[in-house]
Protein backbone atom coordinates (compact mmCIF):
# COMPACT_ATOMS: atom_id res chain seq x y z
CA UNK A 1 0.00 0.00 0.00
CA UNK A 2 1.49 3.34 -0.96
CA UNK A 3 2.04 6.05 1.58
CA UNK A 4 0.13 9.25 1.93
CA UNK A 5 1.23 12.43 3.59
CA UNK A 6 -0.57 13.63 6.65
CA UNK A 7 0.14 16.31 9.22
CA UNK A 8 1.81 15.18 12.42
CA UNK A 9 -0.29 14.74 15.52
CA UNK A 10 -1.06 17.95 17.38
CA UNK A 11 2.07 19.34 18.92
CA UNK A 12 2.87 18.33 22.42
CA UNK A 13 5.49 19.80 24.66
CA UNK A 14 8.74 18.15 23.59
CA UNK A 15 9.68 18.02 27.26
CA UNK A 16 12.92 19.95 27.09
CA UNK A 17 13.42 23.69 26.84
CA UNK A 18 14.51 25.59 23.80
CA UNK A 19 17.64 27.70 24.06
CA UNK A 20 15.82 30.83 25.12
CA UNK A 21 13.77 29.09 27.79
CA UNK A 22 16.89 27.40 29.08
CA UNK A 23 18.74 30.70 29.45
CA UNK A 24 15.78 32.29 31.18
CA UNK A 25 15.30 29.41 33.59
CA UNK A 26 18.97 29.37 34.42
CA UNK A 27 19.11 33.10 35.05
CA UNK A 28 16.04 32.90 37.25
CA UNK A 29 17.41 30.00 39.20
CA UNK A 30 20.76 31.65 39.77
CA UNK A 31 19.04 34.81 40.90
CA UNK A 32 16.96 32.86 43.41
CA UNK A 33 20.00 31.02 44.67
CA UNK A 34 21.86 34.30 45.10
CA UNK A 35 18.94 35.94 46.91
CA UNK A 36 18.50 32.95 49.19
CA UNK A 37 22.17 32.89 50.02
CA UNK A 38 22.17 36.60 50.89
CA UNK A 39 19.03 36.21 52.99
CA UNK A 40 20.47 33.21 54.77
CA UNK A 41 23.69 34.98 55.61
CA UNK A 42 21.83 38.07 56.80
CA UNK A 43 19.57 35.97 58.98
CA UNK A 44 22.49 34.16 60.49
CA UNK A 45 24.32 37.36 61.34
CA UNK A 46 21.20 38.84 62.88
CA UNK A 47 20.68 35.74 64.95
CA UNK A 48 24.26 35.74 66.10
CA UNK A 49 24.13 39.37 67.15
CA UNK A 50 21.01 38.62 69.17
CA UNK A 51 21.80 35.31 70.81
CA UNK A 52 25.40 34.66 70.13
CA UNK A 53 26.72 31.55 68.57
CA UNK A 54 25.50 28.24 69.81
CA UNK A 55 26.86 24.85 69.23
CA UNK A 56 23.80 23.76 67.33
CA UNK A 57 23.84 26.27 64.54
CA UNK A 58 27.11 28.03 64.94
CA UNK A 59 28.89 28.54 61.66
CA UNK A 60 32.53 27.97 61.24
CA UNK A 61 34.31 30.20 63.77
CA UNK A 62 35.47 33.43 62.28
CA UNK A 63 38.33 33.84 64.73
CA UNK A 64 41.50 31.88 64.96
CA UNK A 65 41.69 29.12 67.56
CA UNK A 66 42.77 30.41 70.89
CA UNK A 67 46.19 29.44 72.03
CA UNK A 68 46.44 28.91 75.75
CA UNK A 69 48.31 31.59 77.56
CA UNK A 70 51.77 30.70 78.66
CA UNK A 71 52.13 30.29 82.40
CA UNK A 72 53.32 33.49 83.80
CA UNK A 73 55.03 34.14 87.06
CA UNK A 74 53.16 36.22 89.59
CA UNK A 75 54.69 38.34 92.26
CA UNK A 76 54.62 36.58 95.59
CA UNK A 77 51.79 37.46 97.91
CA UNK A 78 49.32 38.33 95.22
CA UNK A 79 46.34 36.11 94.62
CA UNK A 80 46.06 34.43 91.33
CA UNK A 81 43.88 36.27 88.90
CA UNK A 82 41.80 34.43 86.41
CA UNK A 83 41.87 35.84 82.93
CA UNK A 84 38.66 37.55 82.04
CA UNK A 85 36.86 36.58 78.93
CA UNK A 86 34.46 38.48 76.80
CA UNK A 87 31.88 37.24 74.48
CA UNK A 88 31.06 39.74 71.77
CA UNK A 89 27.46 40.66 71.58
CA UNK A 90 26.52 39.03 74.86
CA UNK A 91 25.54 40.54 78.12
CA UNK A 92 25.50 37.52 80.35
CA UNK A 93 28.51 36.43 82.33
CA UNK A 94 28.51 32.98 80.82
CA UNK A 95 31.82 32.02 79.32
CA UNK A 96 31.89 30.34 75.95
CA UNK A 97 35.28 28.78 75.61
CA UNK A 98 35.70 28.79 71.84
CA UNK A 99 35.10 32.50 71.64
CA UNK A 100 37.04 33.44 74.78
CA UNK A 101 39.85 35.88 74.37
CA UNK A 102 42.29 36.22 77.24
CA UNK A 103 42.87 39.72 78.37
CA UNK A 104 46.47 40.69 78.30
CA UNK A 105 48.16 40.38 81.62
CA UNK A 106 49.26 43.67 83.16
CA UNK A 107 52.93 44.53 82.99
CA UNK A 108 54.93 42.75 85.58
CA UNK A 109 52.53 39.90 86.04
CA UNK A 110 54.56 36.76 85.89
CA UNK A 111 52.78 34.12 87.94
CA UNK A 112 50.88 31.29 86.25
CA UNK A 113 47.21 31.79 86.70
CA UNK A 114 45.08 28.76 86.23
CA UNK A 115 44.35 25.97 83.90
CA UNK A 116 44.72 27.02 80.30
CA UNK A 117 41.69 27.64 78.18
CA UNK A 118 40.83 24.57 76.19
CA UNK A 119 41.72 24.80 72.53
CA UNK A 120 38.66 24.41 70.40
CA UNK A 121 38.33 21.50 68.00
CA UNK A 122 39.17 22.24 64.39
CA UNK A 123 36.17 23.52 62.54
CA UNK A 124 33.99 20.81 61.05
CA UNK A 125 31.82 21.13 57.97
CA UNK A 126 28.69 22.93 58.99
CA UNK A 127 25.13 22.25 58.18
CA UNK A 128 23.46 24.94 56.14
CA UNK A 129 22.15 27.49 58.67
CA UNK A 130 18.48 27.96 59.17
CA UNK A 131 17.18 30.41 56.66
CA UNK A 132 19.81 29.42 54.12
CA UNK A 133 19.25 28.49 50.52
CA UNK A 134 18.05 24.97 51.21
CA UNK A 135 18.71 21.95 49.06
CA UNK A 136 20.02 22.58 45.58
CA UNK A 137 17.67 21.37 42.86
CA UNK A 138 18.71 18.61 40.58
CA UNK A 139 20.73 19.24 37.48
CA UNK A 140 20.94 21.02 35.17
CA UNK A 141 22.19 23.96 37.17
CA UNK A 142 24.65 25.89 35.16
CA UNK A 143 25.75 29.38 34.39
CA UNK A 144 24.60 31.18 31.33
CA UNK A 145 26.31 30.85 27.99
CA UNK A 146 29.32 33.04 27.85
CA UNK A 147 29.99 32.80 31.56
CA UNK A 148 32.73 30.27 31.12
CA UNK A 149 35.45 29.69 28.63
CA UNK A 150 34.55 27.50 25.66
CA UNK A 151 35.78 23.95 25.63
CA UNK A 152 36.09 21.43 22.86
CA UNK A 153 32.88 21.31 20.91
CA UNK A 154 31.26 18.19 19.59
CA UNK A 155 31.01 17.33 15.92
CA UNK A 156 27.81 19.24 15.41
CA UNK A 157 29.85 22.38 15.54
CA UNK A 158 33.03 21.12 14.02
CA UNK A 159 32.02 21.92 10.48
CA UNK A 160 28.67 23.58 10.76
CA UNK A 161 28.97 25.10 7.34
CA UNK A 162 29.86 21.99 5.43
CA UNK A 163 26.87 20.39 3.84
CA UNK A 164 27.73 17.02 2.47
CA UNK A 165 25.87 15.46 -0.36
CA UNK A 166 26.07 11.98 -1.74
CA UNK A 167 24.60 8.55 -1.86
CA UNK A 168 20.98 9.25 -2.35
CA UNK A 169 20.74 11.96 0.19
CA UNK A 170 21.80 15.43 0.92
CA UNK A 171 22.78 16.37 4.39
CA UNK A 172 22.23 19.88 5.57
CA UNK A 173 23.89 20.28 8.91
CA UNK A 174 22.12 22.40 11.43
CA UNK A 175 24.08 24.32 13.99
CA UNK A 176 21.89 25.02 17.03
CA UNK A 177 23.26 28.53 17.33
CA UNK A 178 23.13 29.76 13.76
CA UNK A 179 20.32 32.12 12.98
CA UNK A 180 19.45 32.66 16.60
CA UNK A 181 18.02 36.02 17.46
Amino acid at each position, binding site marked *: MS*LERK*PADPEQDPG*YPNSQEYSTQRRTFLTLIGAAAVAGLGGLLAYQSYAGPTTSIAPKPLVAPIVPAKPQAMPLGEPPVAPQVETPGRTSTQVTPPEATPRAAPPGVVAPVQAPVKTPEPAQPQAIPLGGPGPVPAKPV*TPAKGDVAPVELPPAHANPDVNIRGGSGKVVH*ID*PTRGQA
Partner: protein
Amino acid sequence: MELTLVLTHACNLGCPYCYMGKKFGRRMPEAIAEKALAWTFDRLQPDDELQVGYFGGEPLLAYDLLQKYHLRAQEYARLKGLRKLVGAMTTNATLLDETKMNWLVEHGVVAAVSLDGVKAAHDLNRPFVNGKSSFDAALRGLKIALARAPLTEVLCVIDPQTVGMMAESAKFILDQGVRVLSLSLNYAANWDEAALATYEREYEKVGELFGSAFRTGGDIYIASLDAKIAGRLKGGLKDCDRCSFGVGEVAVAPSGNMYPCERLVGEDNDPKWQIGHIDSGVDPVRLRKVNGGRGVLDPVCQACPLKDRCMNTCGCSNAMSSGDVGVPGAALCLTEQIHAKVADRVARNLFWEGNPVFLRKFYHDTSAALAAP
Protein backbone atom coordinates in the same frame (compact mmCIF):
# COMPACT_ATOMS: atom_id res chain seq x y z
CA MET B 1 27.41 30.27 -0.93
CA GLU B 2 27.85 26.76 -2.21
CA LEU B 3 29.29 25.79 -5.56
CA THR B 4 29.42 22.16 -6.61
CA LEU B 5 31.68 21.08 -9.45
CA VAL B 6 30.73 17.75 -10.96
CA LEU B 7 34.25 16.64 -11.81
CA THR B 8 33.26 13.53 -13.71
CA HIS B 9 30.26 11.40 -14.52
CA ALA B 10 32.38 8.27 -14.18
CA CYS B 11 32.21 5.95 -11.20
CA ASN B 12 33.76 2.63 -10.29
CA LEU B 13 30.64 1.53 -8.41
CA GLY B 14 27.28 0.62 -9.85
CA CYS B 15 24.77 1.67 -7.19
CA PRO B 16 21.22 1.18 -8.46
CA TYR B 17 19.85 4.06 -6.38
CA CYS B 18 22.36 6.63 -7.64
CA TYR B 19 20.55 9.73 -8.81
CA MET B 20 23.37 10.60 -11.18
CA GLY B 21 22.07 7.99 -13.60
CA LYS B 22 24.15 6.31 -16.25
CA LYS B 23 27.90 6.71 -15.83
CA PHE B 24 30.15 7.93 -18.60
CA GLY B 25 33.59 9.35 -18.85
CA ARG B 26 32.95 13.08 -19.31
CA ARG B 27 35.27 15.12 -17.10
CA MET B 28 35.02 18.79 -16.31
CA PRO B 29 37.34 20.76 -18.61
CA GLU B 30 39.59 23.31 -16.98
CA ALA B 31 37.93 26.14 -18.89
CA ILE B 32 34.54 25.26 -17.38
CA ALA B 33 35.93 25.03 -13.86
CA GLU B 34 37.70 28.37 -14.31
CA LYS B 35 34.51 30.05 -15.48
CA ALA B 36 32.53 28.51 -12.66
CA LEU B 37 34.99 29.80 -10.08
CA ALA B 38 35.18 33.24 -11.69
CA TRP B 39 31.37 33.46 -11.85
CA THR B 40 31.08 32.47 -8.21
CA PHE B 41 33.77 34.75 -6.84
CA ASP B 42 32.26 37.66 -8.77
CA ARG B 43 29.23 37.29 -6.54
CA LEU B 44 31.11 37.09 -3.25
CA GLN B 45 32.21 39.75 -0.83
CA PRO B 46 35.30 39.38 1.36
CA ASP B 47 33.07 38.73 4.36
CA ASP B 48 31.37 35.80 2.68
CA GLU B 49 32.02 32.12 3.04
CA LEU B 50 32.22 29.66 0.19
CA GLN B 51 31.93 25.92 0.12
CA VAL B 52 33.18 24.26 -3.04
CA GLY B 53 31.93 20.73 -3.37
CA TYR B 54 33.66 18.19 -5.58
CA PHE B 55 31.20 15.68 -6.85
CA GLY B 56 30.82 12.84 -9.31
CA GLY B 57 30.51 10.04 -10.24
CA GLU B 58 33.41 9.27 -8.04
CA PRO B 59 35.49 12.43 -7.61
CA LEU B 60 38.64 10.46 -6.84
CA LEU B 61 38.54 9.20 -10.44
CA ALA B 62 39.26 12.84 -11.26
CA TYR B 63 41.59 13.48 -8.33
CA ASP B 64 43.96 15.44 -10.56
CA LEU B 65 41.13 17.83 -11.42
CA LEU B 66 40.08 18.11 -7.79
CA GLN B 67 43.59 19.15 -6.78
CA LYS B 68 43.96 21.62 -9.63
CA TYR B 69 40.56 23.25 -9.18
CA HIS B 70 40.80 23.44 -5.43
CA LEU B 71 44.20 25.13 -5.62
CA ARG B 72 42.65 27.56 -8.07
CA ALA B 73 39.73 28.17 -5.70
CA GLN B 74 42.20 28.88 -2.91
CA GLU B 75 43.98 31.37 -5.15
CA TYR B 76 40.71 33.14 -5.91
CA ALA B 77 39.89 33.19 -2.21
CA ARG B 78 43.24 34.71 -1.37
CA LEU B 79 42.89 37.41 -4.00
CA LYS B 80 39.40 38.20 -2.82
CA GLY B 81 40.39 38.13 0.83
CA LEU B 82 37.53 35.70 1.38
CA ARG B 83 36.78 35.05 5.02
CA LYS B 84 36.37 31.32 4.63
CA LEU B 85 36.77 28.71 1.93
CA VAL B 86 36.09 25.07 2.56
CA GLY B 87 36.18 22.15 0.18
CA ALA B 88 33.92 19.12 0.46
CA MET B 89 34.07 15.83 -1.33
CA THR B 90 31.80 12.83 -1.21
CA THR B 91 33.59 9.62 -2.05
CA ASN B 92 32.98 5.90 -2.01
CA ALA B 93 36.49 5.71 -0.46
CA THR B 94 37.54 2.69 -2.49
CA LEU B 95 40.29 4.75 -4.14
CA LEU B 96 41.30 6.67 -1.05
CA ASP B 97 44.84 6.27 0.22
CA GLU B 98 46.98 8.04 2.82
CA THR B 99 48.62 10.36 0.31
CA LYS B 100 45.31 11.61 -1.03
CA MET B 101 43.82 11.94 2.42
CA ASN B 102 46.79 13.92 3.65
CA TRP B 103 46.49 16.30 0.73
CA LEU B 104 42.77 16.79 1.30
CA VAL B 105 43.22 17.56 4.99
CA GLU B 106 46.15 19.87 4.37
CA HIS B 107 44.15 21.81 1.80
CA GLY B 108 40.96 22.12 3.79
CA VAL B 109 38.86 19.63 1.87
CA VAL B 110 36.44 17.72 4.07
CA ALA B 111 35.82 14.18 2.91
CA ALA B 112 32.61 12.29 3.47
CA VAL B 113 32.51 8.56 2.90
CA SER B 114 29.56 6.62 1.56
CA LEU B 115 29.15 3.30 3.33
CA ASP B 116 25.80 1.60 3.67
CA GLY B 117 26.54 -0.13 6.95
CA VAL B 118 27.05 -3.81 7.54
CA LYS B 119 28.34 -5.89 4.65
CA ALA B 120 24.95 -7.40 3.85
CA ALA B 121 23.37 -3.96 3.50
CA HIS B 122 26.31 -2.39 1.71
CA ASP B 123 26.57 -5.19 -0.82
CA LEU B 124 22.92 -4.92 -1.74
CA ASN B 125 23.32 -1.50 -3.28
CA ARG B 126 26.98 -0.55 -3.59
CA PRO B 127 28.81 -3.13 -5.72
CA PHE B 128 31.70 -2.36 -8.02
CA VAL B 129 30.65 -2.00 -11.65
CA ASN B 130 31.77 -5.60 -12.19
CA GLY B 131 29.32 -6.71 -9.53
CA LYS B 132 31.90 -7.58 -6.89
CA SER B 133 31.63 -6.36 -3.34
CA SER B 134 33.14 -2.96 -2.60
CA PHE B 135 32.69 -3.37 1.15
CA ASP B 136 36.26 -4.20 2.12
CA ALA B 137 37.73 -1.48 -0.06
CA ALA B 138 35.27 1.10 1.24
CA LEU B 139 35.91 0.12 4.85
CA ARG B 140 39.66 0.33 4.31
CA GLY B 141 39.22 3.80 2.83
CA LEU B 142 37.04 4.88 5.72
CA LYS B 143 39.70 3.83 8.21
CA ILE B 144 42.32 5.83 6.32
CA ALA B 145 40.03 8.84 6.39
CA LEU B 146 39.27 8.49 10.09
CA ALA B 147 42.94 8.13 10.97
CA ARG B 148 43.64 11.52 9.45
CA ALA B 149 40.31 13.23 10.08
CA PRO B 150 38.41 11.77 13.04
CA LEU B 151 35.31 13.75 12.23
CA THR B 152 34.97 12.24 8.78
CA GLU B 153 31.32 11.86 8.05
CA VAL B 154 29.74 8.66 6.84
CA LEU B 155 26.74 8.70 4.57
CA CYS B 156 24.60 5.62 4.87
CA VAL B 157 21.73 5.35 2.44
CA ILE B 158 18.63 3.60 3.70
CA ASP B 159 16.15 2.15 1.27
CA PRO B 160 13.34 -0.37 1.66
CA GLN B 161 15.74 -3.24 1.01
CA THR B 162 18.16 -2.27 3.74
CA VAL B 163 15.88 -0.58 6.27
CA GLY B 164 15.63 -3.72 8.38
CA MET B 165 19.36 -3.46 8.99
CA MET B 166 19.41 0.28 9.73
CA ALA B 167 20.16 0.12 13.46
CA GLU B 168 22.67 -2.68 13.03
CA SER B 169 24.36 -0.68 10.28
CA ALA B 170 24.41 2.48 12.35
CA LYS B 171 26.00 0.60 15.22
CA PHE B 172 28.54 -0.99 12.92
CA ILE B 173 29.53 2.39 11.51
CA LEU B 174 29.78 4.00 14.94
CA ASP B 175 31.83 1.06 16.14
CA GLN B 176 34.42 1.93 13.51
CA GLY B 177 35.05 5.14 15.43
CA VAL B 178 32.79 7.30 13.29
CA ARG B 179 31.36 10.27 15.16
CA VAL B 180 29.41 11.95 12.38
CA LEU B 181 26.78 9.85 10.67
CA SER B 182 24.06 10.65 8.20
CA LEU B 183 21.33 8.12 7.63
CA SER B 184 20.03 9.29 4.32
CA LEU B 185 16.75 8.09 2.93
CA ASN B 186 16.47 6.98 -0.65
CA TYR B 187 13.45 9.14 -1.34
CA ALA B 188 13.04 7.87 -4.85
CA ALA B 189 12.47 4.28 -3.67
CA ASN B 190 9.07 2.73 -3.32
CA TRP B 191 8.31 3.10 0.37
CA ASP B 192 5.15 1.40 1.57
CA GLU B 193 3.54 1.16 4.99
CA ALA B 194 5.40 -1.99 5.95
CA ALA B 195 8.74 -0.44 5.05
CA LEU B 196 7.85 2.71 6.95
CA ALA B 197 6.87 0.69 10.02
CA THR B 198 10.23 -1.05 9.85
CA TYR B 199 11.87 2.33 9.47
CA GLU B 200 10.21 3.59 12.62
CA ARG B 201 11.15 0.52 14.61
CA GLU B 202 14.75 0.69 13.46
CA TYR B 203 14.97 4.42 14.00
CA GLU B 204 13.88 3.98 17.60
CA LYS B 205 16.91 1.75 18.03
CA VAL B 206 19.10 4.37 16.39
CA GLY B 207 17.75 6.84 18.96
CA GLU B 208 18.81 4.46 21.72
CA LEU B 209 22.29 4.26 20.22
CA PHE B 210 22.43 8.03 20.17
CA GLY B 211 21.39 8.30 23.83
CA SER B 212 23.79 5.56 24.89
CA ALA B 213 26.70 7.33 23.24
CA PHE B 214 25.98 10.48 25.27
CA ARG B 215 25.67 8.49 28.47
CA THR B 216 29.11 7.02 27.99
CA GLY B 217 30.62 10.44 27.33
CA GLY B 218 30.56 10.23 23.53
CA ASP B 219 29.57 13.18 21.43
CA ILE B 220 28.32 11.62 18.24
CA TYR B 221 26.33 13.43 15.62
CA ILE B 222 23.51 11.76 13.72
CA ALA B 223 22.30 14.28 11.19
CA SER B 224 18.55 13.67 11.30
CA LEU B 225 18.42 13.53 15.11
CA ASP B 226 20.71 16.48 15.61
CA ALA B 227 18.76 18.55 13.11
CA LYS B 228 15.47 17.90 14.84
CA ILE B 229 16.86 18.75 18.28
CA ALA B 230 18.58 21.84 16.93
CA GLY B 231 15.34 22.88 15.25
CA ARG B 232 13.53 22.61 18.57
CA LEU B 233 16.21 24.60 20.40
CA LYS B 234 16.07 27.38 17.86
CA GLY B 235 12.31 27.56 17.90
CA GLY B 236 12.19 26.31 14.33
CA LEU B 237 14.71 26.17 11.54
CA LYS B 238 15.98 29.48 10.28
CA ASP B 239 16.63 30.66 6.76
CA CYS B 240 20.30 29.76 7.05
CA ASP B 241 19.31 26.16 7.75
CA ARG B 242 17.21 25.86 4.67
CA CYS B 243 18.13 24.69 1.23
CA SER B 244 19.18 27.63 -0.92
CA PHE B 245 18.34 25.88 -4.16
CA GLY B 246 19.67 27.82 -7.12
CA VAL B 247 20.14 31.03 -5.18
CA GLY B 248 22.93 30.52 -2.68
CA GLU B 249 23.71 27.16 -4.16
CA VAL B 250 24.62 26.15 -7.70
CA ALA B 251 25.93 22.96 -9.28
CA VAL B 252 27.89 22.98 -12.51
CA ALA B 253 28.05 19.92 -14.76
CA PRO B 254 31.13 19.11 -16.87
CA SER B 255 29.23 20.53 -19.83
CA GLY B 256 28.89 23.88 -18.09
CA ASN B 257 25.17 23.52 -17.53
CA MET B 258 24.05 24.96 -14.22
CA TYR B 259 21.58 23.34 -11.81
CA PRO B 260 20.04 24.48 -8.55
CA CYS B 261 21.46 21.42 -6.78
CA GLU B 262 23.88 18.64 -7.71
CA ARG B 263 21.22 16.05 -7.07
CA LEU B 264 19.37 17.24 -10.13
CA VAL B 265 22.31 17.06 -12.54
CA GLY B 266 21.79 13.37 -13.27
CA GLU B 267 23.04 12.57 -16.74
CA ASP B 268 22.92 16.26 -17.57
CA ASN B 269 20.23 15.80 -20.18
CA ASP B 270 17.05 17.10 -18.52
CA PRO B 271 16.46 20.76 -19.38
CA LYS B 272 13.68 20.86 -16.78
CA TRP B 273 16.20 21.39 -14.02
CA GLN B 274 18.75 23.51 -15.85
CA ILE B 275 18.89 27.12 -14.68
CA GLY B 276 21.58 28.37 -17.05
CA HIS B 277 25.03 27.78 -18.47
CA ILE B 278 28.31 28.96 -17.10
CA ASP B 279 28.96 30.95 -20.29
CA SER B 280 25.93 33.13 -19.68
CA GLY B 281 25.22 32.59 -15.98
CA VAL B 282 21.95 31.82 -14.26
CA ASP B 283 18.89 32.60 -16.33
CA PRO B 284 16.47 34.32 -13.92
CA VAL B 285 13.44 33.17 -15.89
CA ARG B 286 14.52 29.55 -15.72
CA LEU B 287 15.45 29.88 -12.08
CA ARG B 288 12.06 31.29 -11.23
CA LYS B 289 10.44 28.47 -13.13
CA VAL B 290 12.42 25.81 -11.28
CA ASN B 291 12.32 27.51 -7.91
CA GLY B 292 8.87 29.05 -8.08
CA GLY B 293 7.01 26.38 -6.17
CA ARG B 294 9.31 26.44 -3.20
CA GLY B 295 8.67 28.13 0.10
CA VAL B 296 4.89 28.18 -0.14
CA LEU B 297 3.58 25.39 2.05
CA ASP B 298 0.68 23.36 0.77
CA PRO B 299 -2.35 22.71 3.06
CA VAL B 300 -0.95 19.46 4.48
CA CYS B 301 2.25 21.18 5.57
CA GLN B 302 0.37 24.24 6.76
CA ALA B 303 -1.64 22.07 9.12
CA CYS B 304 1.39 20.26 10.45
CA PRO B 305 2.71 21.31 13.88
CA LEU B 306 6.19 20.24 12.83
CA LYS B 307 6.37 22.46 9.77
CA ASP B 308 8.98 24.76 11.30
CA ARG B 309 11.29 21.89 12.12
CA CYS B 310 10.85 20.04 8.85
CA MET B 311 13.08 19.98 5.80
CA ASN B 312 10.00 20.51 3.66
CA THR B 313 11.69 23.37 1.87
CA CYS B 314 14.55 21.27 0.50
CA GLY B 315 13.83 21.56 -3.21
CA CYS B 316 15.82 18.56 -4.36
CA SER B 317 14.48 16.24 -1.64
CA ASN B 318 10.97 17.32 -2.52
CA ALA B 319 11.65 16.85 -6.22
CA MET B 320 13.07 13.40 -5.68
CA SER B 321 10.30 12.27 -3.37
CA SER B 322 7.30 13.86 -5.08
CA GLY B 323 8.50 15.28 -8.40
CA ASP B 324 7.60 18.78 -7.23
CA VAL B 325 10.20 21.08 -5.64
CA GLY B 326 7.51 22.67 -3.50
CA VAL B 327 5.90 19.56 -2.05
CA PRO B 328 7.55 16.87 0.06
CA GLY B 329 6.74 13.29 -0.86
CA ALA B 330 5.04 10.94 1.57
CA ALA B 331 8.24 9.11 2.55
CA LEU B 332 9.99 12.39 3.30
CA CYS B 333 7.01 13.74 5.23
CA LEU B 334 6.44 10.68 7.38
CA THR B 335 10.08 9.96 8.15
CA GLU B 336 10.56 13.58 9.21
CA GLN B 337 7.79 13.01 11.75
CA ILE B 338 9.51 9.88 13.01
CA HIS B 339 12.79 11.77 13.34
CA ALA B 340 11.14 14.49 15.42
CA LYS B 341 9.38 12.01 17.70
CA VAL B 342 12.51 9.97 18.40
CA ALA B 343 14.74 13.03 18.70
CA ASP B 344 12.43 14.62 21.26
CA ARG B 345 12.24 11.48 23.35
CA VAL B 346 16.02 11.07 23.41
CA ALA B 347 16.64 14.75 24.05
CA ARG B 348 14.07 14.91 26.82
CA ASN B 349 15.69 12.00 28.63
CA LEU B 350 19.22 13.34 28.23
CA PHE B 351 18.16 16.79 29.37
CA TRP B 352 16.49 15.63 32.56
CA GLU B 353 19.35 13.30 33.28
CA GLY B 354 21.51 16.42 33.19
CA ASN B 355 23.78 14.73 30.68
CA PRO B 356 26.83 17.02 30.53
CA VAL B 357 27.74 16.15 26.95
CA PHE B 358 24.22 16.83 25.80
CA LEU B 359 24.02 20.14 27.66
CA ARG B 360 27.38 21.24 26.36
CA LYS B 361 26.57 20.31 22.81
CA PHE B 362 23.05 21.62 22.45
CA TYR B 363 22.91 24.44 25.00
CA HIS B 364 26.60 25.34 24.73
CA ASP B 365 26.63 24.85 28.46
CA THR B 366 30.28 24.19 29.03
CA SER B 367 29.99 24.23 32.79
CA ALA B 368 27.76 21.19 32.59
CA ALA B 369 30.92 19.12 32.60
CA LEU B 370 31.14 19.92 36.32
CA ALA B 371 28.05 17.86 36.83
CA ALA B 372 29.53 14.82 35.19
CA PRO B 373 29.19 11.65 37.22
